[in-house]
């Protein structure tokens, strides 16, 4: 069933696509100890508090914690690409592709400021032909 007007879906359930306004990432924050988690959960694995989670909007600004430049992956996955672990301002750590940077170690600085951007998921579609929106990281604009 090809439906060109069909709304794209979020690549993960913590990526929110509101009808009005920009996409954003949603974390879960413990009301007791303030630990921030990605993805749905009921209890806190840091302090053990039960039913202690509240949704929190994550920042689109962050810092590159570490990375790897991936040259060998599974069939159909375009290489090289940069796998990056990013600490978001205000809490939450995410892994994603770092884009708009040359994939060489000389060009990527540990600790460099990055921002979260939202785009089509590299053209990947599911079996029903749905498109997806994904999050990516890119060097922050000065």
């Amino acid at each position, binding site marked *: 069933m090809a439906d060109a007007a069909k709304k794209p879906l979020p690549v*993960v359930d913590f990526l929110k696509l509101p009808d009005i306004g920009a996409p954003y990432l949603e974390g879960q924050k413990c009301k007791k100890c303030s630990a921030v988690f990605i993805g749905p959960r009921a209890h806190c694995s840091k302090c053990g508090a039960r039913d202690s989670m509240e949704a929190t909007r994550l920042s689109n600004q962050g810092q590159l914690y570490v990375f*790897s430049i991936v040259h060998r992956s599974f069939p159909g996955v375009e290489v090289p690409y940069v796998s990056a672990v990013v600490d978001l301002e205000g809490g939450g750590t995410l892994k994603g592709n770092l884009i708009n940077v040359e994939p060489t170690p000389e060009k990527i600085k540990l600790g460099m400021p990055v921002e979260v951007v939202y785009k089509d998921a590299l053209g990947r579609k599911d079996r029903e032909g749905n498109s*997806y929106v994904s999050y990516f990281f890119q060097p922050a604009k000065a």
Partner: protein
Amino acid sequence: MSDVYVVGVDMTKFTKAGSTRSVSELGARAALMALDDAGLKIQQMEALYCGNLGQAAAMVGQRVLQEIGQTGIPVVNVSNACATGATAFREAWMAIKAGVYDVCLAVGVEVMGKGLLGGGGGGGGIPKEGLLGSGTMPAVFAEAGMEHTRKYGTTFEQFAKVSVKNHHHSTLNPKAMYQIETPLEVVMNAEMIAYPNTKLMCSVNVDGAAAAVLCSEKKAKELGLMKRAVRVRASALASDPWQERDLVMPDVNTCTRLAAKKAYEMAGCGPEDIHLVELHDCFATAEILHYENLGLCKDGEAGRMIDTGEVALGGRVPVNVSGGLLSKGHPLGATGIANIYEICTHLRGEAEKRQVQGARMGMTHVIGLGSACAIHILEKTS
């Protein structure tokens, strides 16, 4: 409580992934080798603990007994990521320590596929690999290594030197998958898999099995097996404590440090008392981290350890004299017992060309992502 001893232990020669007829046949081979090493029969075993990952739901332990003797003993099948074999060994140790049994068999066995591990993703929708970064093991451990680079400036070359060392060690180990020297430029110029891990800095997928016969002190004396017996001074297992990034970046450090602390406490000794170590070098980047995690040097000194050769055969504390996972090979569920075999072989003075001279105490370490870390400290008795 009395001590527990390893009275028989052996491993198969590790071979190309997929070269084995069946998991049970391979596990049975290692079991018989360990029994022969002890001079005991399957009829004398009171329980079997069997580690395997690939067929974790398929009763591998029972199938091993179906090959070598169905004596009706209790069998526990163990699956605990790359700590699987060590966990099976530890379960046998605990049962004897608790006084439930006097003699137990522990087996670790794996028949592997080829290629990249991890990164399968999960859930519905579209494939996430290469879209939300990488979940492949070479990339995950590259990122773990880059954390060390971030803290201490560790270089690609220093990581690569780990592979040079372990491949050199394996030239002295006939049971290793490879016996090939790989000079630094060969390691660094090999195909880049996930920077900074080149192909020669990734562990080898192999088929392999290892087994150990564990025995109470009373029984070992009764059977006259104390002469070559190796004492288990510590057996520690830890899961991953909460860490800020651990849901995104599996934390092999905190988990290892926790297990190491427990192990040293149990053995009543410190890192300075350890004469050789077999640690989890699933990737060259990982080995560097564990020098510090196991207390072999202070934090920030791991780069120096590899530069000065302190961790090479003949050095202050040789690490992975077997060739390690990088060159001996890494049959996931067998690795934890293969490490124990290597240490016991040195403590018995039977390691021939790669013998660590004067070895009285050794340590084994494995860590499976998810995470599970198992550490054993073993001591020469005679």
